[in-house]
């Protein structure tokens, strides 16, 4: 997680590297101490959930901050989540919705961004502006007509309804972000491709590998709000067989209010995949976040 985890397009200043070899001055200790404090504050609660999900109920309330011992260790919570909950289905639903949304968003936004950079007619800047405005658009406020649309098209309570809405929600920031990446593609390359008689679609295909970091940023940025959303699953796909993980855990929490090991196990299962994915893609996510919104 060390070297490749940096934001690669910003070089490490030479001065900073030199400092690595100095002994530990007071300032450095203070910086580390403060950061460690905040890290504990940030991940402490998450650790509490994970640790306690592995314990028996009396142990959870007897010593909430203790690690599980041979005596208090228990996987009963996880067992009950899988027997009473609907977790496999929830996971599959979240996976289908998130992956399909990411793929659709990547395809649509890449095509659009390529054209917005490539064909510099007046309409292009107008359309580009329309997408930038969309970043700020509170899509949830259109929920009532969305319900009516989904009812009319017989898409109510389907995963497709979620995918369509999430794609619409993700496309504006994705297009805006991809435009910044396509701007860095050298014109010579495209002209050379055209000279060789390549069609526009073929030219697009040729330059696509050059914007791969942008695609990773779009994927990382789309993933989180879609996986974690509670609003649209609650309204557009609430039935048991269509629930996503976030809604499933929410309902599980409501139903098994007193079964703490099972609750904590459900929460752990709901959080772990995204935390892991984020840890892997944090560099793409962070550069996407700062580039996409700084328009």
């Amino acid at each position, binding site marked *: 997680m060390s070297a490749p985890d940096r934001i690669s397009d910003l070089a490490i200043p030479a001065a900073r590297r030199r400092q690595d070899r100095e002994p530990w001055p007071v300032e450095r200790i203070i910086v580390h101490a403060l950061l460690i404090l905040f890290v504990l504050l940030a991940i402490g609660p998450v650790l509490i959930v994970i640790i306690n999900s592995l314990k028996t109920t009396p142990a959870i309330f007897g010593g909430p901050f203790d690690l599980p011992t041979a005596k208090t260790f228990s996987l009963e919570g996880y067992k009950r989540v899988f027997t009473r909950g609907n977790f496999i289905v929830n996971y599959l639903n979240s996976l289908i919705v998130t992956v399909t949304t990411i793929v659709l968003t990547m395809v649509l936004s890449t095509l659009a961004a390529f054209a917005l950079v490539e064909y510099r007619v007046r309409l292009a800047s107008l359309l580009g502006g329309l997408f930038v405005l969309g970043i700020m658009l509170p899509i949830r406020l259109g929920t009532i007509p969305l319900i009516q649309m989904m009812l009319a098209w017989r898409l109510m309570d389907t995963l497709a309804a979620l995918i*369509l809405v999430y794609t619409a929600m993700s496309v504006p920031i994705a297009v805006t972000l991809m435009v910044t990446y396509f701007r860095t593609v050298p014109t010579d390359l495209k002209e050379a491709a055209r000279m060789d008689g390549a069609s526009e679609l073929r030219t697009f295909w040729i330059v696509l590998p050059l914007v791969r970091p942008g695609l990773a940023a779009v994927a990382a940025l789309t993933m989180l709000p879609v996986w974690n959303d509670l609003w649209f699953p609650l309204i557009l796909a609430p039935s048991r067989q269509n629930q996503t993980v976030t809604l499933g855990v929410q309902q599980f929490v409501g139903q098994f209010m007193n079964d703490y090991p099972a609750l904590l196990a459900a929460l752990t299962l709901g959080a772990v995949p995204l935390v892991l994915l984020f840890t892997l893609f944090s560099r793409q996510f962070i550069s996407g976040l700062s580039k996409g919104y700084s328009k």
Partner: protein
Amino acid sequence: MISPAAAYRNLLLFVLPALAVYLVFAVLPLATSIVMSFFQTSGASGRTFVGLANYERLFTHPTISARFWNALLNNIQYFAIHLIVEVPVGLLLAALLTSGKLARSEGIYRTLLFIPATLSVVIVGFVWRLIINPLWGLVGFPLLGTESTALTTISLMSVWQYFGIPMVFLYSALLAVPNELVEAAKIDGASGWTTFWKIKFPLIAPQFGLIAILTYIWTFNGFDLVFALNGSAPGPNYSTDILGTYFYRTFFGSSGQLADLDLGAAVATVIFLTVLLVTAAYFWLIQRRLKSYSV
């Protein structure tokens, strides 16, 4: 070279799929909401134009308007707490991360500090309710059960989740500060403290405007955490009701309140205008001024 006609044709072909999804599932529902807010649906007989009657009800009906103003004021407080706590914390952490005293550990800290922002609100709400549970003995006072402290408590839980976002914006901006400027200040004998406030801080200042406006948009679309903790009629005694939960109740109905789609559309329109006016004012007044100062 591509002829203008061909450029227009290509542009439209490439942009159309993204534009269609965005227009149909994001722009159209919002526009329809606004139109709906001027109508009244009555049984099978269809819709009648009622002018501003829905708005009149929203602003003057004794219970409907009282709840609305309450939710609006709560939402303003919710936003203010986010801004007041998140920005200084984000700035401190971004400054620490870019202090040049971290070397390899910088990426690890950055990733760990952002982890809360990757969690779903269901987990955030549950774990914090558990931690501040009087049973566990950390806090001997029902923070969430008391009218005067409930909203602040929920706001701070949300701050805990999202402080990573301003941190990342400010961190990226600090990394982009030209190293020669910092080096020159160092040669002139400026301390790390002086360099930060006199050189780096003015250069990252535009980020604060961006963070403020994004926080405004996000908090005025807030719903998930409040709903996960307190349901759709968030107590005690509506003291944690914000516009998102109010909107949800209006069109979805709740105990003691029938679902009213037309009134819901009016609520959506009012929230939309609240967001739009402030955002537009920000871009016209502040952003333009900041841009003209930056080189």
